[in-house]
């Protein structure tokens, strides 16, 4: 108790009393996320405002061997910011400054708490010719947390994972040193996270905050075209989806393509919605791209395997919105405030097998499902979501949803997929399958960077 009290005082000294809480209400809320992982309470919730404050907190935690969990908005839904061993949750959202936009080198530098929503709004207002890859997570999702989990967004079909678009990092190492990664380590410019230097960003991206705390991040921006449109193609043949996705990406004309599947409303059942997006600066450019998209899959139209859905303005609006509010609405399908998804990254050829499994598992566990698949890169892989909704007032349904998710994750692994934003149990599944030397390397890196094991313990924990 005395140690905790001293720690509290030390934390107050660093960030001020308004931004430290050891009260039950904050500990309750920060003990959980919107998903299905069991909660665990932190001892403190702390909201730093500056890199220097983060550095002081890390030094203190390292000295006291106190667990430290950096948190954005907790929207991974897989419990990655649930403090498995208590300690301090660092809510980073007070570090909310957009520090620089370099229009000509097309990047932005943000603090760790800047959200996708705020950045989108800022760019629209101040730099309308630039955009970033907006995920379909709610706008409160932070840029840094999304990069740390290798998130995807609206530009992932063209440019890969959102973490591939990182152009530099400022990190506080678990032992308290401030470290810059990428071009910003030798230059005032933040245009590259690695090349032509050794790419050290891999020591932090994908590690879920177990190797350090990112306090600033450079992010690549891309041209924002004046026009944007979406088309919806329908098919009931899942076996055609990989071919359609490949052909669409072959055009190199699409911004993004998502394939959706859900059993309700009934008009959706048994039908896959393929939604490619195009952008352009003129009617001519849009028309050309539209034609290229149609031509690319024309044979499927001719064979009557694929149809086109004409969209009313009301139907088009939610498809065009960024982020899509419909993603969240899935949580209220069971009128219960919850959904979670396993989102394995996998070759696109697996789509038919995965969709079959999704339908089987949903029926087996009697849970409502939905799926949205996003193409990543030029057909290099896809994120396939096995999504299940549940009611938080129905404990039995929560158990069934979790069992359904676990079964889907195991299936995805067996099929050669790699689990995305894996929860602590899924991380174990991944590490059990991992090449032993790779695992040993991870262990060495972790021990080197975090000798006291204070950073988000329980995650990526190599035994």
């Amino acid at each position, binding site marked *: 108790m005395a140690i905790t009290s001293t720690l509290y005082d030390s934390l107050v000294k660093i960030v001020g009393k308004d931004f430290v809480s050891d009260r039950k209400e904050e500990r309750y809320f920060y003990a959980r996320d919107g998903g299905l992982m069991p909660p665990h309470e932190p001892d403190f919730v702390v909201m730093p405002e500056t890199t220097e404050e983060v550095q002081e907190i890390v030094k203190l935690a390292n000295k006291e061997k106190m667990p430290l969990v950096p948190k954005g908005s907790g929207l991974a839904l897989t419990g990655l910011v649930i403090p498995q061993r208590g300690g301090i949750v660092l809510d980073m959202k007070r570090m909310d400054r957009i520090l620089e936009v370099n229009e000509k080198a097309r990047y932005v530098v943000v603090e760790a708490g800047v959200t996708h929503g705020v950045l989108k709004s800022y760019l629209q207002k101040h730099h309308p010719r630039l955009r970033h890859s907006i995920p379909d997570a709610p706008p409160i999702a932070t840029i840094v947390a999304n990069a740390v989990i290798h998130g995807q967004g609206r530009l992932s079909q063209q440019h890969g994972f959102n973490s591939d678009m990182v152009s530099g990092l400022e990190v506080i190492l678990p032992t308290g040193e401030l470290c810059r990664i990428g071009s910003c380590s030798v230059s005032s410019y933040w245009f590259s996270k690695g090349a032509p230097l050794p790419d050290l960003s891999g020591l932090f991206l994908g590690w879920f905050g177990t190797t350090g705390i990112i306090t600033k991040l450079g992010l690549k921006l891309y041209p924002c075209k004046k026009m944007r449109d979406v088309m919806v193609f329908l098919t009931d043949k899942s076996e055609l989806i990989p071919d359609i996705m490949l052909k669409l990406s072959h055009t190199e004309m699409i911004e993004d393509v998502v394939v959706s599947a859900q059993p309700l409303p009934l008009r959706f059942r048994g039908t896959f919605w393929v939604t490619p997006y195009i952008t352009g600066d003129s009617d001519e450019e849009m028309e050309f791209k539209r034609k290229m998209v149609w031509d690319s899959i024309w044979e499927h139209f001719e064979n009557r395997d694929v149809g086109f859905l004409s969209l009313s303005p009301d139907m088009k609006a939610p498809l065009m919105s960024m982020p899509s509010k419909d993603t969240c609405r899935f949580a209220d399908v069971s009128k219960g405030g919850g*959904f979670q998804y396993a989102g394995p990254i996998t070759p696109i050829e697996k789509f038919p097998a995965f969709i079959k499994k999704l339908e089987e598992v949903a029926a087996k566990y009697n849970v409502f499902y939905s799926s949205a698949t996003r193409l990543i890169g030029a057909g290099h892989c896809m994120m396939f979501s096995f999504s299940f909704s549940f009611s938080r007032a129905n404990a039995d349904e929560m158990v069934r949803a979790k069992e359904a998710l676990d079964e889907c994750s195991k299936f995805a692994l067996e099929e050669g997929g790699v689990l995305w934003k894996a929860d602590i149990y899924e991380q174990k599944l991944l590490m059990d399958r991992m090449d032993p030397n790779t695992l040993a390397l991870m262990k060495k890196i972790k021990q080197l960077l975090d000798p006291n094991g204070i950073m988000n313990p329980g995650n990526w924990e190599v035994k």
Partner: protein
Amino acid sequence: MQKYVSQIHRCFRCGYCKFPTDYSSFNCPSYRRFRFDSYSTGGRLWLIYAWLKGEIEWSEHFAEILYACTTCKNCTEQCPMKFAPDIVDWIVGARSDMVEKGKIPPRVARFFEAVYSYGNPFKQLRSDRAAWANGTKKYKAGDEYLLYVGCLGSYDENGQKMARSLVDILNASGVSFGILGEEEECCGNEIYMLGETGLFQNLVEKNNQKFKELGVSKVITLCPHSYNIMKNVYPVSGGNFEVYHYTQILNDFVKNNKIKPSQLKAKVTYHDPCFLGRYNNIYDEPRQILQSIPGIDLVEMARNRKDAFCCGGGSGNFVTDLLAGSADSPARIRVREAYDTGADTLAVTCPSCLTMLTDAVKAENLDGRLAVKDISQILRELLSVG
């Protein structure tokens, strides 16, 4: 209201409720003030659910989190879920349960005690309720309108100035109206929002009865809070009268040339009160009044209309002040936003906003650079009234 118990678990804590439509900043006043997620709407709903399930116990901190909500309805506007229209009712429902259990923050308890004992939250004497009125005549049968000024209009210095300005304008227009004076009761909007359903019902019944006895058929309210509760809740308890916010009446006067304001060279920005805007969709009338004034340059703040940032005064916070004490207090943020437009005048249409924002101008050292005025005051200064 009590259906919240079976519904409140439906919040997914997605966080849309924190933003305005364009996501440019945080628009939930209590989240913006405190920044812990527990102070957002999602945080509040999850904590209420935890309390119902017995996972957390009542504490003064929990109660303050619940009562720091100004019921501004930004969350209702932004929440993507079907239950969005019910969110404020859920919060009020939980407050109501707290009141029944006698577990509320001391400041809120004092608010109730003042209304129980004095009929107003300021502990002012009933006999002083018409002290502002300067002989304004009382309502009598046959008058077209009852002017209801409310507690702020009766006792608060800024509210009294508003009330006097409005009376002058109404007199100049030639309409017949009167006030209730010392017989006026609290409208109960704040009592309702704070969850004291028993006291609220008592106030509604008194007011409805009084209006009925006097034959009141049309009410003009000074305050959007009174307008809201009389328009939307009084009819459920038998209220049978038309109710107007004063801006609706004055806009008609301007349109029909009943009043003709003289010129004013000023750059003005307008702050939408929550209970006029988000609650009752009255966005145009105040702007049309301002635009009718020759010489006024009306500029908008980045957050306006349904995205307006609350001053922090709703749900009794103009008295309980649970969001005060920081440069991040909503009213201080709002006056900075107003000042950033280049405006010299911040126009309001609510006595609560007027007081909150006037105090914030002082706290931000913007005295002399940004004047906060109610539209009734602006208009009054531009009329030739004896």
